[in-house]
């Protein structure tokens, strides 16, 4: 018996050095508790042990001011490229809301957009999808008393340029990555950093090198949106069955024929999924890009949120969500759409959808010549319910003010504050030793060195104290998310119908652009750590729920049958069979939850928290590119450290279970 207990303790050896260092903290030298030259309170540009911020700012200065290309500076070069974006952007803007200057042609009438969206929905899947699309357009048209229609068109004009650009860049890089080992090796860390870097940190760089306004918004969006396309292109090309490739080669394809006739079409579903991801990423950027002057829904949402006009913000938020869900479902339908046998016959029989689309175009042009009401829905038919919403929100908050306030303060005093104090009291040396030991346990020397190096960089940058506050918020939010998501997933995975329901809810919530989550948070808890953590929890519960369901449902049915025949009760099956086997997936879910939480914690800085995100927002307003980038990298280093450890742990478990080799 003693032996077993001893074994258990031995398994957790990696925690003990950390605890020991924490206990003997009073005896540690000062440099071992808080990294030297760290920013403690509100900090401007600080030095850190290694002056990363200075270095980056010097580099930016060189790129900005010196003519490294002989006749022009790097910034002039990037700005002229940025100006090229104006060409397609002018076109989509003219098409959707401005109208053309050079030729006498107005923007697309709303009836035309409505008709085309419905036809496209019918073509892609059927009546249900068409109804969703139609309802979305109707919402935008009807709730347009405060101009939601034009705002939406501005947003869509930018998206219509960003999506193709991100897709093209993503596919090209993906092809390079799939074809050349070196390219893949270079791309992988780049994509890792890009996907874990908070948006705001590169927003500053975009502003410096590409200016502000709609085109800068497009560029920031593209930078954010292309990585999943690249990843999915690489994945799709690599996953192609070797036989299909061999068939292509045996039929005498040259390299280009292989690529365009065999590989890319063969990877079609991955590519379509990539397009879906790109669209969703672009929508997630709608609000964030407005920080550097992207006009549209995001810009107005932000303004209303800042002025606490929650009713109006809510109306715009619904528009964003509606557009997001519609575009998501449309592009998912595109993923699942399979080529169909053509019907022989005349043009409209062979291409019924194309034909009806043409009819709609002609018909709506004629209609818009007859009446202006066809171009844009007249003001007297539009409505706004923001007044009622404001009243409702006021009613809820005043009637719930006392209980919610008590709840909030209770959480703050008894849970959040102590946790925060705990995190802040950890000596940084102890934290490095902890990740080092965990790394050693999971992946020996190499992993230990990597994660210790990551954490050291954060300490060296001078933002250790802020990083620990970020870590505290993320940890608290993760504990709540897991505590909420796992039970929900266990409940949901018992039946097919509930599984489907919860997965659908997850899907829908995930399509919400992240800023939307701040709305209810602020409504309920005003501005505090609680509202920030509330927003993070809602957002970060999605992946843990999804992965746990996936893990639980993917246990082979034979094993479940074996357990039943061994006489397990339902709860025994859950705790002795399903949960242990789902554990590797749950670990991946926790990893994703952390990523989501880190992403959201940065956005929550917008409603006033005192962690790294606040510093990023400061950097944004002072146009301090170096600081923004360094803090952003600190955030991604937190993410990358956890990612390395958790994924390795999950893989070890999967290997133990024989799920992977």
């Amino acid at each position, binding site marked *: 018996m003693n032996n077993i207990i001893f074994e258990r303790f031995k398994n957790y050896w990696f925690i003990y050095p950390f605890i020991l260092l924490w206990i003997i903290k009073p005896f540690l030298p000062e440099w071992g508790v808080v990294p030297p030259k760290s920013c403690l309170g509100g900090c401007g540009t600080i030095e850190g042990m290694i002056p990363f911020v200075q270095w980056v700012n010097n580099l930016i200065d060189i790129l900005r001011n010196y003519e490294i290309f002989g006749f022009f500076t790097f910034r002039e070069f990037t700005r002229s490229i940025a100006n090229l974006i104006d060409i397609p952007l002018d076109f989509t803007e003219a098409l959707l809301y401005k109208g053309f200057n050079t030729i006498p042609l107005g923007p697309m009438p709303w009836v035309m957009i409505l008709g085309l969206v419905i036809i496209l929905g019918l073509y892609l899947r059927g009546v249900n999808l068409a109804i969703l699309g139609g309802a979305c357009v109707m919402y935008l048209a009807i709730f347009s008393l405060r101009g939601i229609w034009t705002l939406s068109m501005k947003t869509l004009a930018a998206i219509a340029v960003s999506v193709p650009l991100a897709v093209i860049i993503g596919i090209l890089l993906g092809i390079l990555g799939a074809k050349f080992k070196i390219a893949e090796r270079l791309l992988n860390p780049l994509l890792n950093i890009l996907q874990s870097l908070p948006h705001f940190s590169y927003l500053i760089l975009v502003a410096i090198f590409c200016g502000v306004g709609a085109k800068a918004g497009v560029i920031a969006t593209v930078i954010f949106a292309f990585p999943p396309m690249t990843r999915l292109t690489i994945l799709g090309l690599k996953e192609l069955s070797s036989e299909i490739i061999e068939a292509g080669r*045996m039929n005498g394809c040259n390299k280009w024929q292989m690529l365009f006739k065999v590989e890319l079409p063969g990877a079609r579903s991955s590519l379509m999924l990539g397009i879906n991801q790109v669209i969703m990423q672009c929508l997630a950027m709608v609000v964030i890009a407005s920080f550097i002057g992207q006009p549209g829904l995001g810009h107005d949402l932000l303004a209303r949120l800042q002025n606490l006009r929650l009713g109006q913000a809510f109306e715009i938020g619904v528009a964003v969500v509606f557009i997001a869900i519609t575009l998501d479902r449309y592009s998912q339908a595109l993923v699942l759409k399979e080529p169909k046998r053509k019907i022989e016959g005349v043009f409209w029989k062979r291409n019924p959808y194309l034909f009806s689309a043409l009819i709609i175009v002609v018909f709506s042009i004629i209609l818009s010549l007859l009446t202006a009401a066809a171009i844009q829905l007249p003001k007297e038919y539009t409505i706004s319910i923001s007044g009622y919403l404001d009243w409702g929100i006021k009613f809820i908050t005043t009637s719930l003010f006392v209980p919610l306030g008590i709840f909030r303060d209770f959480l703050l005093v008894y849970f959040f504050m102590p946790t925060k104090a705990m995190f802040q009291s950890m000596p940084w040396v102890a934290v490095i030793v902890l990740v080092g030991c965990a790394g050693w346990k999971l992946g020996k020397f190499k992993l230990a060195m990597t994660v210790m190096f990551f954490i050291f960089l954060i300490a060296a940058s001078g933002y250790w104290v802020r990083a620990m506050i970020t870590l505290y918020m993320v940890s608290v939010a993760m504990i709540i998310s897991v505590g909420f998501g796992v039970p929900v997933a266990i409940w949901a995975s018992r039946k097919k119908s509930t599984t489907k329901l919860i997965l659908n809810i997850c899907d829908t919530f995930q399509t919400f652009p992240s800023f939307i989550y701040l709305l209810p948070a602020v409504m309920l808890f005003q501005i505090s750590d609680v509202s920030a953590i509330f927003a993070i929890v809602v957002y970060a519960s999605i992946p843990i729920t999804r992965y746990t369901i996936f893990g639980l449902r993917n246990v082979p049915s034979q094993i479940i049958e074996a357990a039943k025949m061994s006489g397990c009760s339902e709860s025994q099956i859950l705790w002795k069979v399903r949960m242990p086997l789902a554990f590797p997936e749950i670990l991946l879910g926790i990893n994703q939850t952390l990523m989501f939480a880190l992403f959201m914690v940065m956005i929550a800085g917008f409603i006033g928290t005192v962690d790294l995100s606040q510093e990023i927002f400061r950097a944004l307003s002072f146009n301090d590119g170096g600081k923004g980038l360094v803090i952003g990298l600190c955030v991604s280093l937190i993410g990358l450290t956890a990612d390395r450890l958790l994924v390795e742990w999950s893989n070890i478990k999967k290997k133990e279970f024989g799920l992977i080799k």
Partner: protein
Amino acid sequence: MPKNSKAISCKNVWKLYGSNPSKYLASKNFNPTIKDLKESQYIPAVFNASIDVYEGEILVIMGLSGSGKSSLVRCMTRLIEPTSGEIYFEGSDLLKATDKELIEIRRHKMGMVFQNFALMPHRNVLDNIAFPLEVQGISREKREKRALEIIDLVGLQGRSKYYPRELSGGQQQRVGLARSLAVEPNIWFLDEPFSALDPLIRKEMQNEFIRLQNLLNKTIVFITHDFDEAIRLADRIAIMYEGKIVQIGSAEELITNPSNDYVAEFTKDIPRAKLLSVGSIMKTTKKLKESTLKVNKSDKISSVAPKIISSNSVATVVDDNGDVCGELTKDQIIEILFSDKENHE
């Protein structure tokens, strides 16, 4: 035994997996033993294989999974690069062909059918079959005309606009056969073409294959792990084991004269009576009494068994010229028909 000219000829072909295998092979003077390879952690996919394929014959390469039969065929088509060796195709070494020449050879002279069909999911039947012609740059009109001809040939009339997912496995492999025949190849590779099909469909497709071969008379390299299939289709069978070709010969030769225990083990469950000829088991004693019951030397046992067993006498074996060359007793036939495994080990 076919005496035609060689269509493809492999000489000392090696395919090793491991770090820098060609250097290793040269250092071992192109003659490492299995033990050498294991010690140096190389995996031999093809171990010093030499084999000739004659014009117009069906050569079946047989072996269990991992025996190297797929690797050997992929060396012959250069889908994988052999570590060393020579492969002569129409007089020149295929391994020295440039990428461009190789593309030309594959476009005009080789056809290949794959185990899991390898159809392009985004193309319908017609476009799949026309694919090899399309990559050659043949005009749409011409290639579709040709594709329709082959669709008729493989019995897929009326399915030309279907997509692969709308077809059954057997139909999909018909498309696979048709695609590989579209360019009228000189040599036809089939890599376990019927293994993914269920047994009844497999039989049907084998018959289809025999029908096609009677029409087309191609040189064929056919891979299978199914000995029954090999016997049905093969002129000659090559058995592979751990990358080596252990024996090449007709089905009868493999059964009567297995080169080692592995081949014997492989062939032991085969219904001998249908495969063995009278000549292979007859007694050639010096004193031959001519009986009234005569059987031909090349007859299969199963076809003469009823006569001999019911006649209750010894049968005289004659060759094609009618000369007596041996005799066959009832007991010998019974032994073949009811042989149990022990008798052959």
